[in-house]
């Protein structure tokens, strides 16, 4: 039993954006445990109002520096849904491949650079450059592969230049895809080594029952569009996303909070696997088994492992997508656009969870209203309540301040929060 503790982490490091952790225990009682988001809002939903449809993906992609491709694709899908456009199979395949590569680069960044240092008692990955060069080189190799792939498909790894409403401005050369395939084949070994590395890490033992929300896969592991599914039993069409988010404001956070059936909810890799484990590709399933990751897993620290499993998943699926592209003649990259008035919603699984963009257009294709619901926005309340439960458990176990601070920081990092994105 621990009688007192006072922890205040201002601007938690190794996460995107600005958030604080506060934990106060007095006379053995938990007085406060909170996740405070202090990021400055940028007001994207207001700045889009009055802008023409072609501005939407271009501007809203700038919500996030890590998953700009996901935002751009969600925005494009929302616009295309308003205009009643159905992308060609080739466009869908290329978009999914592009998204997979962003997922891979984002997960690798998180696993190696943001999360791993905690498990080896370091403040950053920098000391490993000299002590374990092969580990850093492996991380760099995987990230480089994924980013190079984003360049050849999306034109640019950050704030893509080829992705537009209707398809792509230009296509990758087949030769580039062939080379990418060879590099992806070679990366499987690196991913196996990554899994081996993570088996040496002690994942903290903490469980809090949670409602997990993600896209619902039908015949494949889902990433772009489809129904919305919660582990508490809700199954809704894409356009009813508001019922799956219910955003509201709270004093301690410039990011809104969300809830569905309970006090809070969670999205992300763990949510996706909890809802779609049966759709994992063979090798990804093996890695999940290796770590005993089975649905429904309620340990938030296991989101790290879920991301690792997804790295394998997206590589396996990308190989199939590339084979499909290589097996057919390349068609026109881009469809013409016919503007229509109306409301369109897109749900896309980005690295940190399900992302929604919704626009209301007038007859000339000018935005009357814009709404973006960010994965971390959906996770922030859950992080807060997890911290409460964790602080209670730690107090009961008599952990030291330092141990509690580390576990709390690792908990937040496990969600891989994208805080400036959640405030946008």
């Amino acid at each position, binding site marked *: 039993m621990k009688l007192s503790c006072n922890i205040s982490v201002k601007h938690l490091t190794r996460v995107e954006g600005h958030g604080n952790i506060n934990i106060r225990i007095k006379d053995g009682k938990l007085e406060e445990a909170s996740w405070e988001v202090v990021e400055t809002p940028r007001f994207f939903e207001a700045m889009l*109002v009055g802008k023409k449809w072609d501005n939407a993906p271009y501007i809203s992609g700038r919500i996030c520096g890590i998953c700009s491709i996901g935002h751009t694709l969600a925005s494009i899908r929302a616009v295309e849904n308003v205009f009643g456009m159905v992308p060609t199979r080739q466009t869908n395949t290329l978009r999914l491949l592009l998204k997979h590569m962003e997922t891979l680069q984002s997960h690798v960044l998180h696993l190696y650079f943001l999360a791993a240092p905690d498990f080896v008692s370091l403040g950053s990955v920098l000391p490993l450059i000299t002590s374990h060069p092969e580990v850093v080189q492996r991380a760099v190799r995987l990230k480089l592969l994924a980013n190079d792939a984003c360049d050849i498909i999306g034109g640019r790894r950050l704030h893509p230049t080829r992705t537009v409403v209707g398809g792509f401005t230009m296509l990758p050369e087949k030769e580039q895809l062939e080379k990418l395939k060879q590099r992806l084949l070679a990366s499987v070994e690196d991913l196996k080594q990554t899994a081996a590395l993570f088996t040496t890490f002690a994942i903290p033992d903490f469980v809090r029952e949670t409602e997990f929300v993600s896209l619902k896969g039908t015949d494949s592991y889902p990433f772009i569009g489809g129904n919305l599914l919660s582990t508490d039993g809700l199954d809704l069409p894409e356009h009813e996303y508001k019922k799956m988010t219910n955003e509201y404001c709270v004093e301690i956070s410039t990011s809104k909070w969300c809830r569905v059936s309970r006090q809070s909810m969670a999205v992300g890799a763990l949510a996706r696997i909890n809802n779609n484990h049966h759709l994992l590709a063979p090798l990804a399933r093996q890695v999940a088994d290796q770590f005993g990751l089975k649905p429904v897993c309620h340990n938030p620290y296991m989101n790290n492992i879920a991301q690792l499993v997804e790295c394998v998943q997206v590589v396996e699926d990308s190989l199939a997508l590339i084979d499909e592209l290589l097996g057919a003649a390349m068609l026109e990259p881009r469809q013409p656009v016919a503007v229509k008035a109306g409301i369109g919603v897109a749900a896309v699984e980005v690295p940190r969870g399900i992302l929604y963009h919704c626009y209301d257009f007038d007859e000339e294709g000018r935005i009357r209203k814009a709404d973006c619901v960010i994965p971390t926005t959906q996770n922030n309340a859950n992080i807060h309540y997890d911290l409460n439960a964790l602080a209670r458990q730690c107090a009961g176990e008599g952990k030291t301040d330092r141990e509690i601070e580390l576990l709390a920081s690792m908990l937040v990092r496990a969600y891989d929060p994208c805080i*400036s994105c959640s405030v946008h």
Partner: protein
Amino acid sequence: MPANLTYLGVELARPRVAFFELSSCEGCQLQLLNNEATLLDFLSLVEVVRFREGMTEAGDDYAVAFVEGSVTRADQELQLAEIRKKAKVMVAFGSCACFGGVNQLKNRFSDQEWVKREVYGDFHVDTQLARPISDVVKVDLMIYGCPVKKEEVERIVTDLLLGKAINHPKYPVCMECKANENICLFDLGEPCLGPVTRAGCDAWCPSNRMGCWGCRGPADAANIPQMARIMAEHGFSTETLLDRLECFGGFAAHVEEIRKKG
């Protein structure tokens, strides 16, 4: 850490650099991590004492401060003043810091209370107009771009280290675009701000068949009336021209002028 760098046989001091972010997408900082091929070499050039997104250790002793993002809240003004006191060289890192970036798009609404209500309803949030950091402190060096181009960042940092003068290209993106032998987008029916935007990105967007939106701000002697004529001749509306000119804040003065003329 890797050994120190030498230049002409002389060992160079690795400058202590720190990274800070105000209101931004943090993409410009990530561009550095995204440059895997030369990341490790780059890290041997400088000593990073603060990079919140990548490391827990946070040093307060630095010579070069890279500041990303624009100013949108009072506490950021204080933070900037503190950084300015410590840094010998203050770098505005990316278009948010240089011009206000996409963030300044909210400034175009005359009713800023509406802007707040549109996003937060009646809930109170602290915010101001989005401003470039040079509105608050003296800036020694601008690195343009949304996002910054990593090759350019590395070149600038190396020049800084060697004490070389840092010169941005004075000419527009069109020059780089022509050097890349691209088909001009106007001939493909697409608008482009290449004729007036400062080069240095190697015509990043036109080379991918997307028109330039002017993220690096105006080139020296940018001829905006001529740009307007080119757009009109190709059938693009003033709205299309303004959408692009006003996107990142670099052309704010020109936009105001066009709006005034109506």
